[in-house]
Structure formats: C-alpha cells, structure tokens
C-alpha cells in the first residue's frame, strides 16, 4: 500500500479549521481551569480536614480516572436525566463544545491545583516566616508574597500542563466536535486514507506543542535570570 499525500494537501484547509477549534478549546479550558484551580489548591493546603477533604476528593477523582470517561459522563451521562434537560443548565450542557469545556476545565483544574499546591509548598519555609515576623495577615501573605512567588515556580510544570491539555483535547472528537482530530476522522470517512491524514494531524499538534514549549522557555529564562533555578516536581496527567 502506498501513501498518497495529495489528500493532505487537498484537505489541509479543513484541518486548519479543526486546528482553530482545538486552540479555542485549549485556551478556554486552560484559563477557566486556572481560575478554578486556585481556590481548590488553597483549600487543599488547609490544615483543617473539613476544608481540605473536598478538594482532595475532587482532585483525586479527576486525576484518577480517564478523561475519556469524564467527557462521556458530562456529555452522555448528564443528559440522560430529564431533570438536567429541563434545568437552566441545559442550554449549556446541550452544546458539545461546552461539555468539552466543562470536562476539560474540571480535569485540568485538578492537575493545575496540584501544581499550584506543589509550588506554594515548595516556597522555602524561611520566606514564609519572613512574612509572619513582619506581622502580615494570612491574606496579605498569600496575596503579596506567596502567590506571586509561586507563579515563578509553577511555570515549567504549567507549560507541561498546557501541552498535556492540548493533546487531551483530541478527545473532543468523541463527542461530535470537529476539532483537529474530529476533522481528521471526518475526512478519513470520505477518503479512507487514515495514515496520511492522521500523520498530518499529528504534525500540526506537534507544531503547536513546539510553539508552546518555545514560548514557555522564553518566559522561564526571563524568570530564572533572577530567580535561580526553582524547578519543582511536576505532577503528571493522563
């Protein structure tokens, strides 16, 4: 069997349309994920078990189960119930795009929360004590010192998370979204050239990841100029 890459050229514009959907999905879920992650991480750090157990369970569930299951749960699972379909949430939940965003956001926020937690806890105890001895309140301490400080620490891990999210977004194709992978599968349904089209899609993903890596490398370099190396362990995702 020979490969016929002329189909790639023919369908490239459609792959690009899918790419744009993929980028939208990733950017939205990453931004929303970070917003959700922050309070989750802060609650998770709390020494009070009443406050920390719920975020713990949240993080554990979303990190311990496949994203594919999570997407299906949100998309097919939720819509199984009459009550959901009649609720005010339905206009959002009926859209596969928003279902994907919800699943991705919850998923990435669980991972991001762990990254934030790791970063905050990686701040040397002495720097925290320097806040305390100054008479800072807890809120001041987080707002003024710990969170800005954590931002620098978080960068490498967070760059990784964005790439992992980019790749995970391919699962949107399973709920009818025409993201890059979805578009590829639809094209293949016409052309029956899976290898050529999948390779082309893979190359586009790779190109985007390389751009993301490059951007983060630049930001990191700027940070590390004065922060020294502050890398911490990266919680991985799946």
């Amino acid at each position: 069997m020979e490969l016929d890459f002329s189909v790639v050229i023919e369908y490239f514009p459609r792959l690009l349309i899918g790419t744009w959907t993929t980028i939208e999905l990733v950017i939205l879920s990453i931004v929303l994920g970070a917003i959700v992650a922050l309070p989750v991480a802060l609650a998770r750090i709390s020494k009070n078990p009443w406050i920390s157990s719920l975020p713990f369970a949240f993080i554990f569930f979303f990190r311990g189960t496949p994203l594919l299951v999570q997407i299906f749960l949100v998309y097919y699972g939720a819509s199984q119930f009459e009550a959901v379909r009649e609720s005010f949430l339905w206009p959002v939940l009926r859209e596969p795009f928003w279902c994907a965003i919800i699943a991705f956001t919850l998923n990435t926020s669980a991972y991001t929360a762990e990254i934030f937690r790791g970063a905050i806890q990686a701040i040397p105890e002495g720097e925290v004590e320097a806040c305390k001895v100054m008479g800072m309140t807890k809120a001041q301490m987080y707002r003024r010192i710990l969170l800005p400080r954590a931002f620098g620490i978080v960068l490498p891990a967070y760059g990784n998370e964005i790439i992992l999210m980019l790749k995970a977004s391919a699962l949107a194709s399973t709920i009818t979204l025409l993201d890059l992978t979805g578009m590829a599968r639809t094209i293949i349904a016409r052309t029956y050239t899976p290898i050529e089209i999948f390779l082309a899609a893979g190359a586009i993903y790779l190109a985007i990841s390389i751009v993301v890596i490059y951007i983060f490398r630049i930001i990191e370099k700027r940070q590390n100029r004065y922060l020294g190396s502050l890398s911490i362990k990266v919680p991985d995702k799946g």
Partner: protein
Amino acid sequence: MSKGPALELRDIHKTFGDHEVLKGISLEARDGDVISILGSSGSGKSTFLRCINLLENPTRGEILFNGEALNLKPGECDLYASDMKQLTRMRQKIGFVFQSFNLWPHMTILQNVMEGPLHVLKRPKQEVLEYAEYLLNKVGIADKKHMYPNQLSGGQQRVAIARTLAMDPQVLLFDEPTSALDPELVGEVLGVMRGLADEGRTMLIVTHEMNFAREVSSEVVFLHQGLVEEKGTPDKVFGSPDSERCKAFISSVF
C-alpha cells in the same frame, strides 16, 4: 509611656515530641538593652528566640510586650495565639533577622524593603520609598536597590536588616545573623549591628561572635540544655563565670 519592660518572657517551655528543648527560660529586656544569647549548638537558643514572636509555639510560659501579655490558648500540646490581631500587631513591632536572610527572591532589593511598611503598615508610598532608600544607604547597599536578591554576591543580610528596620520595630531579634556569611562579609554585618546598638535600639542577639557580644551587649545570657546557666554583664560572664560549663564554653571559643 509603656508600663513594663519592652519585652518580658516568663518561664518559657518548649517540647518537640518528647524532647524538652526549653525547660523554663525567663528574660527581661528594657528599652535600649542589648542582650546576647550564647550557648553550644542544640542548647535551644534559636528555639527560644523563635518562641518570642510565636514562630515556634511555646508549650508553656508567658510573653509580655511593653507590659501587655500576649493572649495564648492551649492547643493539643502547645500554646497558640488566641487573638490573631494582637499577635499581628505585636509582630509588627518586633523585628526578626534570620540566619539565612529569607529575602523574597522575586522582588528587587527595594521592593523587599518597601513591602512591609507599604502593604502591612499601609504607609504612603513616597514616604516609604524615601525611608527605604535611607535605610539601604545606611546599610551600604543603596546602589544595588534595583537588583534581585540572587543577583547580589554578598550583602543579603544587610538587605534583610534594612527590611526589618523599615518596619520601625521597637525590638530587634537576631538569630546568628552572621553564621551563614563568608568571613569578609561578617565584619560588614557586625558593623551595621554595632551601629544599631549605638543608636540605642533594643536587641536580642543569638551569636557565636564572642568579641562582638562582649563589646556591644548590656547583658549576656548563657543557655545550656534549655536552661539559663549563667547570666550577667559581659565582663562578668566572659571574665569570671560562675558556672563550670560556661567557663569551658568560653575558653573553648577564645
């Protein structure tokens, strides 16, 4: 004016697990006192200093600041502040200088120094800026104010002292401020501290620099295994200590 000594500690105990590190230490510092705390490694000097502003929670004891007792409530095994507002207020008046500086690496020198007065005491920005520059000048590091701590090759401790002074604390606590420094930097920091003592600041200093302690202190306290073993004027403690242990310690370092 204040109704008691600037700082008074009564019968401070501290237990880590089942290891009793402080076995009842009392100490009084009046305005202008410079008290040096000596003792061999592990004798509890740092722990004691950290108990004063509750970086470490004492197991038993009382802490009074200008005659006002810090409200404490018993926890599982240690005492905790029952009035966070009061503790915060007190900490703002008690400066603490760490052995390892603990500067915030993501802020410039100037930002480090301005952070406290600007955002904790909420003083006006212009005033804070001027004062910070004055202080950086005083510790001799003004020309590097826009650098980040990690870009400084030495001098972090001087920045840390300026950061503490920027809060205008009534009492200063130093925990071995020179022992993480290269020999040539030690002199500079001791110089800054000597200046502070000359200004009449109230200071508690944990140090291994005997000459310095002898020179600047109004009182010297020698700790041994969590207890005050010897206490008195520098001449007394260094010259003719009562305790055999203190004698041995001092002769071992000179």
